[in-house]
């Protein structure tokens, strides 16, 4: 940890989560700085998705603490997390194919206008804002009025990312955003992530594909059996080491010691 002068965008301390008897996470720490892209790797069942669902307010943690811009927060719902700028792009994208692009981007947060006694959705404003936002992100679609089910996988991913950044999202969490994409669409999504970085947005990227991790990330951390295993700046590791982490070999890159942690992962 070289510098501590910036306030991290998000800090998690000692997060644990159990589902009944299943311990999905125990004592996990995480830190992301503003404009930083953090890669999270780990084998299936390592707890990556669970960790991200805690950060985005889907699950409350069984134990542990979350700090946003240095202040402790508690989320009762994804809405609470969105309010402080944490947005998640779900593995299954969570788009409604029967709705238009703009409706998906603004779902649950539609602009309205008052007409006499009733508040109506301002479809025109939503279409215009959505178009402007997509243009900002260099995402090109034929028309924002298209139904999402008419889009390709990459375009859907782009719409999901656009939704995550449409409301001053400061931290965007992406769970395997390239897993379901055709090869030629992967690069475009990764470039979109790099673009978010230039807007000062932090990204947490879960991916099984080391190509993705090494293309966009500044730092990479590994989970193993629900615990921190290792982390390093991207410049300080190579692929083989990261592959080793996924299989549970931490190599030379341990995590900073914490007195309350007993590491059983080796």
């Amino acid at each position, binding site marked *: 940890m070289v510098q501590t002068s910036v306030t991290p965008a998000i800090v998690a301390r000692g997060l644990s989560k159990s589902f009944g008897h299943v311990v999905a996470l125990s004592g996990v720490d995480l830190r992301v700085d503003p404009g930083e892209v953090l890669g999270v790797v780990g084998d299936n069942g390592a707890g990556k998705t669970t960790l991200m669902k805690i950060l985005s307010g889907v699950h409350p943690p069984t134990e542990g603490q979350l700090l946003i811009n240095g202040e402790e927060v508690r989320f009762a719902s994804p809405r609470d997390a969105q309010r402080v700028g944490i947005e*998640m792009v779900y593995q299954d994208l969570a788009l409604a194919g*029967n709705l238009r692009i703009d409706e998906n981007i603004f779902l649950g947060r539609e602009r309205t206008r008052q007409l006499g006694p009733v508040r109506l959705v301002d479809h025109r404003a939503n279409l215009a804002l959505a178009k402007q936002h997509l243009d900002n992100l260099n995402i090109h679609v034929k028309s924002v009025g298209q139904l999402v089910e008419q889009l390709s*996988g990459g*375009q859907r991913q782009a719409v999901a990312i656009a939704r995550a950044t449409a409301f001053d999202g400061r931290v965007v969490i992406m769970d395997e955003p390239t897993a379901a994409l055709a090869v030629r669409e992967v690069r475009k999504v990764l470039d*979109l992530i790099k673009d978010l970085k230039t807007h000062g947005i932090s990204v947490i990227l879960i991916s099984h594909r080391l190509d993705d991790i090494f293309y966009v990330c500044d730092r990479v951390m590994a989970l193993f059996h629900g615990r921190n295993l290792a982390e390093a700046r991207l410049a300080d590791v190579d692929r083989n080491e990261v592959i080793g982490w996924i299989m549970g070999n931490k190599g030379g890159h341990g995590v900073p010691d914490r007195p309350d942690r007993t590491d059983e992962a080796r």
Partner: protein
Amino acid sequence: MGVTSPLEAASDAPDVERSRLARLTTFIDRFGALGIVLIMGTLSYVAQPDVFLTTNNIANIFRQTAFLALLALGQFIVIVTAGIDLSVGSTLALAMMSTAVLSVAGVPWPLLILTPFLVGAAVGVINGVGLTWLHMPHPFIMTLGMLNIARGLTNLISGGVPISGLPAEVRWLGAGNVSVGGLQVPVSVGVVILSYLAVWVFLQHTRTGRHVYAIGGNPQAARVTGVNVDRTLVLVYALCGLLAGFSGLLLAGRTNSGFPNAGIGAELDAISAVIIGGASFFGGRGTVLGVFAGVLVIGMMRNLLNLSNVQVFWQQILIGVVIIAVVAFDVLRRRIGSAS
């Protein structure tokens, strides 16, 4: 920014053709059911040229289908969420009978008119609450239970016999006419059209209405974007119940009575109208205009078969054939659409 490569459409060459097909699909989605209405109308006209197009006959069709129109409208909102409400026929009967019982007890007409709405909405709220808070596995179960409960209650409060005698104001709603530019238009038709307009505004132009479609399209997406899915579903079932109650009011007015067997099997007619009107049984798809067309198709079919003295059993068979044909056509069209 600006260094990144744009996310273009994945396919380039067949785009023109695809968009033409997409446009055709959208067009059929919007107006397909009206096409069936036109076909039915032409058939009716050819078969009964002297009777079919008389204002009397048209008014009759509308008057007879008004109660189905309201049932189908409520059912439609539920089906958009990928749900189903089997209890609407019984709810209609309970609302109708409650009104008749209270009327005989001397309750003044403004309260009588309010009664069926309250009864219907209450039944709907119970359906919705059972579905969400009691975590019923499928709306089929909850509303099947309610189908029996509401029918039982109807018989209980009436002793299982028809009760007649409603004030003129209620009868006017179900059987009265108003003169519009010299034309005698049934009041019930005006009521139906206003209800359809209101529901159209609700579904297309309010946030909650759009959330109803989102829930039908992908409930998970609705949930994680902060839509209160449970509350929306309770509202949807309450609206469906409310419209079933309204429908009971019209039928009570038209027949000047409450009868315990009213609306038996009407839930299936309502579902048929919604499906013929182009809504998807899997939720998220369909329009108010389509439902209206679906109701008209059923109404015209009945009318034509009655005018032609066709046995009532044939009506059932034909409605069944139309349902299957419409859905089969829809499936075929989508397969062709996605294959290109």
